[in-house]
């Protein structure tokens, strides 16, 4: 090995690979399902981000008009303090979206690394596998309760719960890809050629592991959104008066007779978010299957 400059070619190769991969994922969003899903998501994210501009009155504009029926002015009606439920739902999206946008990618990166660690050290891979087993043994909300106890309720505890809850999903996918790829003849061929482990990982294993992981990111986002709702409903999540979809439900369910929209509104938002991510996951999945089916 004399005149080579592995870093240069290697980096070039990686860029190409990632570019090609990302291109495929972006192409997936061009499919009808992906288009609707990502369109919906963009709409929701924009609404959440620009809520202060769209609704300059803010999240807490109260009035004496409690429990107004839905109308053009108040699409979801008003709550017990005369606040517009729709506006509060839109603001509440900020919490849900910020949570999953921060937590899920962290979980994806960490989980993938943990899952792939088996390639570096079998023992390490096994150890992480056991960790995943333990996490999976904990039903999701029980896990949330444990984390709330340690951290205290709030955004951080929710984010941590989502990360911990999602870790094994990514870890197992990555490990599954690792195990199946490791035995593939093209990986063996690279080993016989003497290609280094990191290069094998980046060129041969990672690209194939990424497909399911991208789909899972989308699915974990749904999971994260629902975890926030669940923990906030029982009062262990976001603490009032910050509106989140879960805290709105926490209060809304108490007024379910007086104002059904108080419960229905946040649920509509939750389902819209879930739908958006689901459509994106479907589109990604279809795209992946298409590429796979050589």
């Amino acid at each position, binding site marked *: 090995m004399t005149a080579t400059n592995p870093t240069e070619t290697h980096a070039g190769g990686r860029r190409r690979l990632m570019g090609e991969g990302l291109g495929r994922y972006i192409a997936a969003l061009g499919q009808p399902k992906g288009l609707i899903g990502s369109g919906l998501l963009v709409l929701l994210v924009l609404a959440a981000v620009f809520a202060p501009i769209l609704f300059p009155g803010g999240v807490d504009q109260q009035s004496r008009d409690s429990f*107004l029926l839905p109308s053009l002015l108040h699409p979801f009606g008003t709550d017990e303090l005369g606040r517009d439920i729709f506006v509060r739902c839109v603001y509440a999206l900020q919490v849900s979206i910020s949570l999953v946008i921060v937590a899920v990618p962290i979980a994806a990166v960490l989980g993938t690394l943990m899952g792939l660690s088996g390639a570096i050290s079998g023992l390490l891979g096994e150890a992480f596998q056991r960790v995943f087993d333990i996490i999976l043994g904990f039903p999701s909300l029980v896990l949330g309760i444990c984390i709330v106890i340690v951290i205290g309720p709030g955004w951080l505890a929710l984010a941590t719960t989502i990360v911990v809850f999602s870790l094994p999903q990514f870890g197992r996918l990555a490990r599954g890809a690792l195990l199946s790829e490791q035995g593939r003849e093209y990986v063996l061929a690279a080993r016989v050629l003497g290609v280094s482990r990191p290069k094998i990982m980046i060129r041969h294993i990672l690209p194939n592991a990424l497909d399911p992981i991208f789909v899972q990111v989308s699915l974990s986002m749904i999971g994260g959104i629902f975890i926030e709702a669940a923990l906030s409903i029982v009062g262990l999540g976001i603490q009032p008066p910050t509106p989140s979809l879960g805290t709105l439900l926490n209060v809304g369910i108490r007024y379910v007779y007086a104002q059904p929209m108080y419960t229905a509104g946040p649920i509509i938002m939750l389902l819209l978010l879930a739908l958006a991510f689901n459509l994106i996951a479907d589109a990604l999945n279809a795209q992946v299957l298409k590429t796979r089916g050589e």
Partner: protein
Amino acid sequence: MVERSGGRLRLNRRQVLSGGIALAGGLAVLGGASYGQGAPQPGGTLRLAQGADAQPKNILAGRAGNNTWRHQVFDALTVLDSETGQPRPVLATEWESSEDGRTFVVRIRNDARFHTGRPLTAEDVVFTLEQVMVPENASQMAPLVRAYTSIEATGTHEVTITSDTPVAPRVFDVFQLAVILDMDTFSGLADGSQVVGTGPFKWVDWVPGASLRLERNDDYWAPDQVLLDGVEISIITDSTAMANAMRGRVDMVLAMTPRDAIMFRGNPGVELIEGPGAQIFPLGLNVTAPPFDKRELRQAIGYAIDRQRIIDQVFNGVGNASCLWWRSNEPGTTEEMVTHYHYDPERARELIAAAGAEGAQVDLTVIGLAPVPAIYEIVQNNLREVGLNPMGQVVETAAFDQGQTAGDLGPAFQQIHGLQGFSAATLVDALPALRDTNPSKFTPERYRELKDALQSAQGDAYAPALVELGQFMLDEAFSHILLHTPPLHAKVQQFQGFTFNNVGFLHLAGAHLNG
């Protein structure tokens, strides 16, 4: 499907409000007299539902979960009549005060026995009063009892209390809360394994967080008062579920929310009662910490808050906007005092400007106990309106209590207190918000002096002393009372003969199920 009878409820604002008013107007606000006059027949098990769990460990403290059963299992020496406010004898037979009021002798029944069969003696009374002083028992009366110089059994059925200040009438507040405990089984209170009193019912079975069962005490000293075979108390934490239980599953629901009470409007089988006693919602301000070291700003808060909106929107119109810490019918109370702080955002802004606190950040610690967070949302909104920047943090009850004990609740805090019905003289030491070690850190000499003056005031001197203290407290504005809300109970028609004392504790002696 039991629920069908309720019909579909869909209310707009007007209906809710008018419902609230109708509710308030239609309520039977009854005093000490027994509810109903029918000829009582013995038998039957009374089924009650309440929101908070029993806390036998804190039997000497005013806790919501204990109000339903405290006076069934235990007897007090005296209770205060909810109409007249005067003491009625229970275990006490007679009492007398010395000339200067500093020595007080109470004589007790000689025919009362604990559920274990042991006869009640003066030693038990002394023991109970000593327990009131123990911090772990968390009695709000502890400061009063600690002020006594001695508590002695001066006979097998006589107890003498001496103090530097007049013992009566505040001692009746103590007696009402300090139900007489059995010294032999006292330790069983900690986990509810043995809860023994002299009351008309025996404590049989407690499933923490779920249910409590009482059984008639056949050896009660007033056997004709025990008409029911037993009492079953269901603990239902969800208010709607609790209200729903009224549909055939329980005979009485205690302390339901006004919102849920609407369900029973126009239901002939269910009677709604506005009971005596009330909850008050203080907004405390730490006078030692900026920005509330400025009195103008503290006062501004009082004017900023729209109390009526809180009553309308959080309590469906049930409640009154008094800014006093005690009942409005305390001697000497004036209309001006009750409405001293009223919604006047202009005035509030002026005061804020005077304090130079425009745009000041107000960190609020809010106890996470419904409906306080809901009140906070209006408070927050009101404070924003007058140009302040409220930053609220809702914390769990446990954390709040810890902060309160540590005097560490931050510059402003919102909580909830019961005990309405006790005399003002008692409350100023019993309410955590007002006692000497209050979380507002409000401890000027004059405050103690005015309290002492009130507590030593005998007869006609009481009213002026109260006015002076009240006006001082209002002016200093270290703790704003936002409103008083009376408890709402629902009961079936057949359930009659029960009473509430003036703090709103239930008494089932004489109650029956066949009215």
